């Protein structure tokens, strides 16, 4: 079912706010990882704490979230995450 197909991507960040190395943080400076799951209907991203020594993401420590609906917001300009209170990261969607 095309609706079940998911594409995952991720991006690291050194801090909650933009800083000089936000684009390309070195491993030791990565504090947050943004995990995105894409389906044909929506794009859902959670920015969670990340331990660069253990390579462990902590999905219960969510710094921020993004939720865009493809049909109504194809350019991803209207983040609906807070409207939906984020909710739990669907474990079934963890890559």
């Amino acid at each position, binding site marked *: 079912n*095309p609706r079940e*197909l*998911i*594409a*995952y*991507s*991720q*991006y*690291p*960040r050194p*801090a*909650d*706010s*933009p*800083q*000089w*190395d*936000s*684009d*390309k*943080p*070195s*491993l030791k400076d*990565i504090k*947050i*990882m*943004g995990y*995105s799951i*894409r*389906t*044909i209907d929506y*794009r859902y*991203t959670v*920015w969670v704490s990340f331990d660069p020594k253990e*390579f462990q*993401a902590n999905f219960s420590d969510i*710094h*921020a*979230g*993004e939720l865009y609906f493809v049909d109504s917001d194809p*350019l*991803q*300009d*209207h*983040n*609906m*995450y*807070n409207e939906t209170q984020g909710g739990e990261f669907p474990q079934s969607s963890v*890559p």
Partner: protein
Amino acid sequence: TDALNVLLIIVDDLRTSLGCYGDKIVRSPNIDQLASNSLLFQNAFAQQAVCAPSRVSFLTGRRPDTTRLYDFNSYWRVHAGNFSTIPQYFKENGYVTLSVGKVFHPGISSNHSDDSPYSWSFPPYHPSSEKYENTKTCRGQDGELHANLLCPVDVADVPEGTLPDKQSTEEAIRLLEKMKTSADPFFLAVGYHKPHIPFRYPKEFQKLYPLENITLAPDPHVPHGLPAVAYNPWMDIRQREDVRALNISVPYGPIPVDFQRKIRQSYFASVSYLDTQVGHLLSALDDLQLTSSTIIAFTSDHGWALGEHGEWAKYSNFDVTTRVPLMFYVPGMTASLPKAGEKLFPYHDPFDPVSELIEPGRRATDLVELVSLFPTLAALAGLQVPPRCPRPSFHMELCREGRNLLKYFWFRDLEEGPDLYS
């Protein structure tokens, strides 16, 4: 029954700004022609929108959380696991594997060797003129030479009188000529540098995109609800002399709108320049009668933001930076085998008035991932598809974390086709 050759074309920082992806502005007739003979994936995504992590991910068939490369500073065989790569797998299956240009990201992440000797049968080729890419070779309005972001050049004027991608195309064609007479199948990976910054391209391509026709991104402002952590402050382009001179405020800018349009103009011009290089390469494949025995895979390592959400460059999770072109030409499967003397990929000049409308090829709209490239190329070439990875898989040298996309290649109307490649 002979093994099919493989030509893998990887374009640096190419977003889906191509005619075959519905872009109305960009002139990309040669890539569009490839698409018309291919299966094109409309919704293909990279695993991380930055060069080295994305390339190591799709070339090993593992996600970044397995390669443990999120920056540029580690070599997966030392740092995470001795994972096999696509070229290595083909090499172990009797192919002569060859690398031209930017396939692996240079430096630590590929062991300063493009992962030789594991991945390649011969030392990888890098164009000599690449060393001038970030030097002062851009003539500014003051008549002086600068290291600019926008760098349309007179090729006769630049050091060595050539550009890296031109040299890469020449080398790739030379290798095809050599491999033509080889008894072994070849796996040739060609990595083009443009449209990666700086936008250094033959200045005549600017004429294809008159500034008065260039619009801003449809959503050029930072969205109200965008979390600060999600925003990419495009620090790399700010280092370039022409951008630095604008004194743009950090982190949110904005870039002055006329310069935004110039960036977009130069990105599109770089894409059309890149398209001509792909055109020369594919028409040479035709001339060497290799088209009916060679699979062609065309993709990029990630996209590039052209002002959407007030952002530029890659470094984010937005669709504009993670969505990539992905298409496969498979002789006798995505297109009928060319008859003797027939050309599937004659060169098209982007300056010609819009040549006859190029028919779209076959398309798949399901969401797919670059990490699927490994199993899919193996399947199309008739090799054993590596097994699915267990979790974790650091100890596994050969397995895959992406889906095999072969099922999208079985078209009903070809079942009766006389030339179905079996």
